[in-house]
């Protein structure tokens, strides 16, 4: 039976996911086509233009994806440390031989093509975590396993931070979710959430009031559990850490983050308005999306899109084109497709017999989720500007291929779900 599967490459492939993938790629291509100016006398199809290149990327990506299905799924398990190692080497290499584009040392030029190692580090890391979890079955109750997993995630994260490409680095936080699924305590997620909430609150509310609130809550909590001594000690501890965090984060914010990053955060929180400088992107993007109203202005009819009001519109801000030309309806369809894809990936992951496939599946879903949430959130101003692409839709070969590889490796693993890897 195993033999039979090996011969039939496309056996058991989840074609619905492939279909969604193709749909998203087509949506991406159409909107990239709309995002660049079209003089009336232009040639029918121009391969040197961004939409022409994207066409090649989509076709080659599809070929790449389908050819991945030809591999034996077990290879990914076996070569996981090797692939991870290569991506780390590439990440180190890019710091020395990389080309600096827009302040980020993120690209390795190969002929006319530019490779972005941080994109490939995502599936490298995902494979190694899956391998680690499937091999040692840690329950993440002990310090050691958390430490090891932490190292696996932190190594590429730190290297990417050094480029510096904060946006891509942030995506590595997505691995929290697969680890949570595998037994990592929910407190980690809560602490993470608490850190974000306190960080935001630190800017919007005076520190004295925040401390008062924290003390009140912990006081009430201690009062309610006054007989449980251990809990009280923990609460006091957490409270002190939280208050300390408030001050540390303020200092870290000033010292560690760069000016443009601080600007973006302050703009998002509404502490600053800047229609011309750093805030221009976000404001123009929101104007473009908002002006689409319910049904949009129609394909190629978006004035903000046509006349170049939104910078980086075919890459990070591609969602503004969708918003303007297709309106709320189009946005809902795209978000709907994404959510359907994500929920389906989780369901596919859960049906795996092998831990390796499940962990990897969760990783794929959560990486995609982070990208989608951060990217769309940024274009509509609920998240600070973080330059990461919208999966399958944004213009760019590296990102499209890396997402394709990420997804199709999982589809291959999924097609092998009956066997043991």
């Amino acid at each position: 039976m195993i033999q039979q599967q090996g011969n039939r490459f496309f056996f058991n492939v989840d074609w619905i996911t492939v279909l969604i993938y193709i749909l998203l790629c087509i949506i991406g291509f159409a909107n990239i086509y709309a995002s660049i100016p079209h003089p009336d006398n232009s040639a029918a199809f121009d391969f040197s233009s961004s939409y022409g290149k994207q066409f090649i990327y989509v076709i080659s990506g599809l070929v790449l994806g389908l050819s991945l299905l030809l591999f034996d799924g077990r290879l990914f398990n076996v070569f996981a440390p090797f692939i991870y190692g290569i991506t780390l080497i590439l990440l180190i290499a890019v710091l020395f031989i990389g080309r600096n584009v827009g302040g980020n040392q993120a690209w390795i030029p190969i002929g006319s093509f530019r490779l972005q190692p941080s994109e490939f580090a995502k599936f490298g890391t995902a494979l190694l975590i899956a391998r680690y979890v499937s091999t040692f079955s840690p329950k993440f109750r002990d310090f050691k396993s958390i430490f090891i997993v932490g190292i696996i995630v932190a190594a590429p994260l730190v290297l990417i931070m050094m480029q510096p490409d904060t946006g891509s680095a942030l995506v590595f936080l997505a691995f929290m979710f697969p680890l949570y699924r595998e037994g990592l305590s929910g407190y980690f997620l809560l602490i993470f959430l608490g850190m974000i909430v306190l960080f935001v609150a630190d800017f919007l509310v005076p520190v004295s009031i925040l401390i008062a609130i924290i003390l009140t809550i912990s006081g009430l909590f201690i009062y309610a559990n006054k007989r449980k001594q251990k809990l009280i000690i923990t609460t006091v501890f957490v409270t002190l850490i939280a208050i300390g965090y408030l001050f540390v984060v303020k200092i870290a914010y000033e010292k560690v983050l760069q000016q443009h990053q601080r600007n973006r955060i302050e703009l998002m929180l509404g502490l600053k308005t800047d229609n011309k400088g750093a805030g221009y992107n976000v404001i123009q993007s929101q104007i473009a999306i908002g002006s689409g109203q319910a049904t949009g202005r129609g394909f190629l009819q978006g004035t903000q899109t046509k006349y170049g009001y939104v910078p980086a519109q075919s890459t990070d801000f591609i969602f503004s084109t969708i918003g303007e030309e297709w309106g709320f309806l189009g946005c809902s369809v795209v978000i709907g497709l994404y959510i359907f894809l994500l929920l389906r990936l989780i369901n596919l992951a859960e049906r795996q017999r092998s831990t390796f496939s499940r962990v990897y599946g969760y990783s794929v879903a959560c990486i995609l989720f982070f990208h989608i949430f951060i990217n769309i959130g940024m274009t509509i101003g609920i998240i600070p500007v973080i330059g990461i692409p919208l999966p399958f839709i944004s213009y760019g070969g590296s990102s499209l291929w890396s997402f394709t590889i990420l997804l199709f490796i999982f589809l291959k693993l999924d097609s092998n779900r009956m066997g043991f890897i």
Partner: protein
Amino acid sequence: MEQLFNRKYIIQGLFIVIAIILLAKLFYIQIISDKAFVAAESNVLKKKFKYPARGAILDRKMRVIVQNEPVYDLMVIPNEVKSFDTLALANALDISVDDIRKNMRKARLKSNYQSTPFSKQISVQSYARLQEIMYRFPGFSTQDRTIRHYPDSVGGQLFGYVKEVNQDDIDKSDGYYRSGDYIGKSGLERSYEEFLRGEKGVVNTVYDAKNIPQGSYADGKYDINAISGERLISGIDIQVQKLGEELMTNKVGAVVAIEPSSGEILAMISSPGYDPNLLVGKSQGNNYMDLIGNPYRPSMVRPIQGYYPPGSSFKPIDALIGLQEGVIDPNMTFNCPGYYMAGNHKVKCEHVDGNISMRRGIARSCNTYFCHVFQKLITKNGMKNQRQTYQDWRDKVAKFGFGSKLDIDLPFEKKGYFYNADHYDKIYGKRWGYTTVISQAIGQGEITATPLQIANAMAIIANRGYYIRPHLIKAMGDKLLVKKEYVTKNYVGVDEKYFEPVIDGMQEAVNSAWGTAVLSRIPDIIMCGKTGTVQNSRGKNHSVFIGFAPRDNPKIAIAVIVENAGFGSTYAAPIASYMVEKYLNGAVSGNRVAQVEWMKNQNLLPLLIDKSKKLKLTKADSLIIRKTDSLKRINDSLRLKAATAKRPISAQLVKKPTITIKSDPNKK
């Protein structure tokens, strides 16, 4: 394990929650709020306004008195400017290289991306020179506009001026005006703003993010062509107006001439005046400040804002009311011993006439006669009811237009004051009677009127009992619209038959040997009139004349007030007669031409003492002033040309500012 499997739902739930958050925000910015839609439109759409020409103003014989002249502004879009030959541009514009830099800085401060004025109202020569070398200055463009031009250089205060709107105008206009628009600020330009301004045109152009035009919006579907303002036809006879302004040169005062049958104003002079051409174009601001600072207050519109006691010109109205009330009849005589005793207060008369009837009383302007008339009017119901009869009399006089606005089509009209009985109650309690207010009888004291009200009263007498609200504009636009309030007759409550005796008196005043204005008789025209010498608490008496002509079917009613000029017969009456003759005959005839020239050259501007210099007059100086002054008055009344005695030394020291407002702006 089972427990961990449930964590799937937490993660999937998180996905769904986040998706809902994204969709909620999208729903808000795309469907609930239309802010983004508006912002998107204003991003790409730039409206360029096309300014219509303001409507022209014609005189009653369809001669153009206010027209438009094209001017050119040099505009610049600082961002599109490349380094250019500053010297060449400076030469073309006739300005210095420093000015070029300064203007450039100013333009950059205003806007980098929008077309902003670089040099306003450049000359035609500069414009022609620029056209040839324009290609060398990318980012620069010329824009044509029109400004006002007044071919006859008269009537400054009537037409008013046009100026860029201020924030207040914009706020009040319900969105019609935008920064950079022009609006009529005073005079006719203000009161007929809505007709004159026309309709602005709009060209919608789509711009890309780099502010490069990308063609017209929706194929020009929403573009609007500018529509020129409508023309106005005024009742003014520009020739008469011009003559009047010339006659009033170097005099302070006002002239109002009305066509009685229609209420159309034929001429309206406020002196000192100014050339309206001064208040257009580049030097508008400076000239305006000069006008404001001028001690003779040329910016004041005296015909509607100047307060003068009507003086003797009030007497015909007394007579009419007396006749209407039946307290006198034309043949009743009163004895004039040269004064009238009101209680123990003495009202002087200029002459001793003995028994005097109405006709002669008017012709000779006898104070005594009219004090008697007033006494009879106020005491007709006995001494106890004087308060009531005064109030009745006051209301009857008010029907002639005193004490309230006549609603002429000019802004800022004043109404004069004319007291009610209540007012006297406040001053005197209950203890007052005709003797207290006797000065009302001869138009002095607690009554003031604008020259317009005085002229209107004359129009009422000319019409024998009614007036039409005086107005400057008789028809608006091509449809010749007339405002309704300017065609209705307002009756004053005096029967037509009572007018003839009064008019007889006025005719004699001008045309009989004993009349006060006999020297102003016009050959072949029977003008009826009345002189007045208005006591002025602050200086020399004002010279006043009111009249109308011809006696039958009057074509013109006129009031002339010359401040500090002494007797009404000396200055006011002749000025009126020249203007009437000019209007009725088209020209002043015979030896009167020379008189006109003499009149034009008379300088009656009051001396201005510059208080800041605290010049102390010596006794000798003040003696000279007093002497020359009284000498002058005698000479004036004898109409000797030699009247212009030399100015005292101290007056020259004071350095009276000379009025040079009427100079040609082009010479500047």
